[in-house]
């Protein structure tokens, strides 16, 4: 018989700070749920209203298809906003990303400023940008396009810069040694190396833009969102369902299309 080896303790000794950390996290979760999550009672009443014979779900079905053509046109406008916003955002993201890249930025101060701006664009939600641009250019799709553009500069600017940071420096050094200009190095060595990553980011930006553009109408920045809001406000839940389903089709179609292009190109 072999000598018995004592089993290790079940729990490791933790420091007071670690215990305190655990208590703080638990307290944060519990108070957050207590203050904001619905009570069981209100959930129950809500569910009853939802599934009641004359409730919300019953009013949604069958979807109202009488205004499908109008919704389709508005959906097209939404898609156009998304494409315009993404395209403009991607175009402007490139110079921001170059300025934010270690090796390509002309000066550390400029790099810091570009990174700060990209982070700012990304942090503020596109709905907030939409409200801002409604004040600037008025209600309508133009405000939506600008909001999407700023949001995409933040999104793509970051990923473009990361891709350029990670690009192999060998070809860049080789061109620098030849005496190539900064623009020459960027266009002939950096961009070709980053093309797969740029393509993927651009397609993700388009998908994000399409999803975002559907919501922008809620604050009056053009697109299908405003019709959805009106349908809900007027209790036309059957029309709202039609809009939601058509938005779903659009988003899924764009996502499928973009995955297909990604698979083909990369």
């Amino acid at each position: 018989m072999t000598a018995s080896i004592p089993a290790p303790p079940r729990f490791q000794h933790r420091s007071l700070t670690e215990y305190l950390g655990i208590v703080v996290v638990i307290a944060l979760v519990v108070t957050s749920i207590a203050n904001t999550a619905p009570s069981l009672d209100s959930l129950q009443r809500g569910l009853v209203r939802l599934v009641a014979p004359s409730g919300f779900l019953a009013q949604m079905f069958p979807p109202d298809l009488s205004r499908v053509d109008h919704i389709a046109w508005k959906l097209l406008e939404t898609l156009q906003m998304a494409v315009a916003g993404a395209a403009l955002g991607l175009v402007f993201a490139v110079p921001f990303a170059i300025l934010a890249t270690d090796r390509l930025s002309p000066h550390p101060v400029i790099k810091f400023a570009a990174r700060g701006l990209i982070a700012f664009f990304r942090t503020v939600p596109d709905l907030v940008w939409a409200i801002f641009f409604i004040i600037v250019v008025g209600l309508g799709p133009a405000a939506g396009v600008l909001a999407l553009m700023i949001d995409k500069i933040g999104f793509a600017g970051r990923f473009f810069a990361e891709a350029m940071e990670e690009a192999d420096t060998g070809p860049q050094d080789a061109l620098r040694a030849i005496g190539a200009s900064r623009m020459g190095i960027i266009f002939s060595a950096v961009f070709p190396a980053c093309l797969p990553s740029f393509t993927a980011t651009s397609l993700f930006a388009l998908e994000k833009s399409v999803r975002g553009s559907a919501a922008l109408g809620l604050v009056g920045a053009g697109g299908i969102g405003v019709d959805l809001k009106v349908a809900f406000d007027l209790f036309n839940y059957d029309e709202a369902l039609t809009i939601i389903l058509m938005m779903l089709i659009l988003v899924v179609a764009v996502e499928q299309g973009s995955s297909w292009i990604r698979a083909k190109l990369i």
Partner: protein
Amino acid sequence: MNALQTAGTVAAGSTPVGPVLHVSDLVKSYGGPTVLKGVSFTAYAGVSLAVIGANGSGKSTLLKCLIRLTDPTSGRIEMLGQEVGTLNARALRRFRSRIGVVWQKHNLVPRISALSNVLHGVQSRLGGPQSWWHWAAPAPVRAEAMACLARVGLADKALQRVDSLSGGQQQRVAIARMLMQRPEIVLADEPDASLDPQSGEDVMRLLSDLARQDGLTLIVISHRLEHTLEFSDRIIGLAGGQITLDVATGKADAGQLRRFFDKPGEGTP
């Protein structure tokens, strides 16, 4: 100094030669240990100079200092009649355009054609989109790039993506890019190092032949004894950051050279 001149003259036969590169007391330290400790040598026009030394002896640092890809700590470099250390950014670009560099790893731009890569060599004298992609380049520039590719035997691969070529072919594309530069001096940092023995020899032979045909000065960092003996006119050996050997290749003794290809620390004669 006399010894140096003799070496250069011997190598170039009866052709009158002058110095194209003069390095004196070059010191380079990266903050920690000093890599180059007062390196001095002269290179002559049309002469092929091999720089040998064990790993970590400072060969690559020396090459980078010559075109200021890294700035020397002290010392003087005079190349093609210019004081390299004093050049401002613009003048440095113009100066670099006269120096062709072939790297150990070919350093080509992946995902684009061999022709576009060769065309990049023109960026030393032609800016803008016409020097970025072959399809945007003026006809004479495209023709010159094709001629450079033909000289390295790859005209038939012009439109092939460069990352689909073999290692040896890629290095030849890099040599074509260097030719496109119309350089006056060629620096090569172990151009055969990442290739199989046969491709490595082919690349070295090609580089040596092209340099001879164009009367170019060739400074090659070499890590293979047989290539050093076959493709150079003169050999300088670096050990411990200093030049401890400077000899005409014809007079070099293989045993004496072998020590420079050994492990670090064993190269000091």
